[in-house]
């Protein structure tokens, strides 16, 4: 019985993401606004990447293009060598807003993707229950979303994406609406799950500490037009714990990133 779960956890050679010359612009009042200009990067399977930048730098736009929600003006996205042009279950998405379907219980929400793909009931329940247990939601499996706290809803959203074993997990400021304590717990939980699954993660945030704590690499983004300004390797040891936030290495990285972001934030404020 346990073999099924193990199998789905083992098969990790997927999750190779390539973004080539990606530009996004749209027309506003007859003028074209460049949201993103020639963004290039490659992500290896199993990497945890943060897109970090001030608001308006287009970091969520990159995520939306990779998800297939919006079409780029030029350039391409490939996931596992396949061209991305529309949303699919191999790119899981966790939204900033609470996005569980209000008319489904926690269990039904997590099960939804598997059910759509016609996975047999017994397999579904094994997988869903495994993940519910993994994030401590098993006893809330029959609750409706409005009966859950914000942190619980986001945990359910994360496993709703992961249960489909996506090549890449896209996370758009998923913890931004949570209080500081809950946010820390969620970050630690996310890292433990990720270290088991080794799913490629692209995580959008504007919080420097969050980016440093979570990621292998940070892509710091600039504004006007949105682009990747610098790629920073986060060399902090794993597994990471909250007390690591006080290490000298962490503090010096934090300062370095802070300076980069500060420049861009000032630029974006001037333009407004």
């Amino acid at each position, binding site marked *: 019985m346990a073999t099924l779960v193990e199998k789905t956890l083992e098969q990790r050679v997927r999750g190779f993401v390539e973004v080539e010359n990606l530009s996004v612009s749209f027309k506003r009042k007859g003028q074209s606004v460049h949201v993103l200009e020639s963004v290039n990067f490659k992500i290896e399977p199993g990497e945890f990447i943060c897109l970090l930048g001030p608001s308006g730098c287009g970091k969520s736009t990159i995520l939306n293009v990779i998800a297939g929600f919006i079409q780029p003006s030029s350039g391409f996205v490939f996931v596992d060598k396949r061209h991305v042009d529309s949303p699919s279950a191999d*790119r899981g998405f966790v939204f900033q*807003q609470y996005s569980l379907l209000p008319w489904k219980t926690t269990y039904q929400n997590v099960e939804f993707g598997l059910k759509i793909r016609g996975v047999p009931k017994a397999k579904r329940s094994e997988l869903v229950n495994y993940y519910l247990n993994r994030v401590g939601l*098993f006893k809330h499996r029959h609750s409706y979303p*409005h009966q859950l706290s914000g942190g619980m809803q986001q945990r359910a959203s994360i496993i709703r994406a992961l249960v489909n074993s996506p090549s890449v997990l896209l996370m758009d400021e998923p913890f931004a609406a949570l209080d500081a304590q809950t946010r820390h717990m969620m970050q630690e939980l996310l890292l433990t799950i990720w270290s088991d699954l080794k799913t490629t993660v692209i995580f959008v945030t504007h919080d420097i500490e969050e980016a440093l704590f979570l990621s292998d690499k940070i892509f710091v983004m600039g504004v006007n037009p949105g682009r990747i300004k610098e790629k920073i390797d986060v060399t902090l040891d794993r597994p990471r714990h909250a007390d690591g936030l006080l290490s000298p290495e962490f503090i010096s990285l934090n300062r370095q990133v802070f300076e980069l972001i500060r420049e861009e934030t000032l630029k974006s404020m001037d333009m407004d």
Partner: protein
Amino acid sequence: MSTSSKRSLKASPLAKVNTTIAHCFKALSRRDRSASNQQKLNAQVFRRILSLVLFFGIWQLLCLNRFNFFINFENVPSPIEVAQATVQFVTGNPMKHIQASAIRVLSGFTIAAVLGISLGILIGWFKKIEDFIFLPLELLRPIPAVAWIPLAILMFPTSESGMIYLTFIGAFFPILISTIRGVESTDLLLLRVGQCLGAKQWHIFKDIVVPGAMPNIASGLVIGMGNSWFCLVTAEILAGRYGVGYITWESYVTSNYPPIVMGMLLIGLMGAASAYAVDRLTCLLMPWRITKKKSA
């Protein structure tokens, strides 16, 4: 907030004691609250009964004094006369009339619900269908049931089907419009959720659009049920012998006033009761909303 199951295993015995104490306090305050809730409820029931007593009392007084200042109560049947008419009606053969009316309203309402919901979903979801049928429907919508009487007589083979058509007209438009609004207001976020879980059109439709529209559809059904009863008197102008609306209209024609008011009140009562029943039934279909009310 407890998160992983690992964490809860670590809970110390002291913490357990603390939570037990907290539970006791909660239980106590809950009992207090339920006692004061009971009082509040009693006061509420009392006020509502009083409102009815005042309503009928003032009406009786206006009739007794033959009130006549712009509005004339001289010929208005008093509550006592209405009560006498009611007793007469009830001891006669009331079920024949009630049944006839209820069947008409229920048939009209059921057809309206089926057509209104399915057309509403199609119009709300498919732009082309909206282009093809929405304008003619908008043109028909403001026409009141009374104006349909001549055509109902001309178009339908029996007066029974004509009457059902008139009650249908009353219910159809509110159900249609609410369904369209409900479908159109589908949350883009939830559509995206479905897409990146691999949902194709059918699943998005069945699991996201339709359940999302259900609260709107439900309020359309409640309003539609009320409107169906509105249209009953109009419909039963066509009636041969039975129906609550028929009694009301017939009594007017024969200048027998008390049964008119009785018929009006009876229609009000049955309309309110059936609208309430529709409300309850639709709530049963949406368990995720009932619990919302309770927890609020």
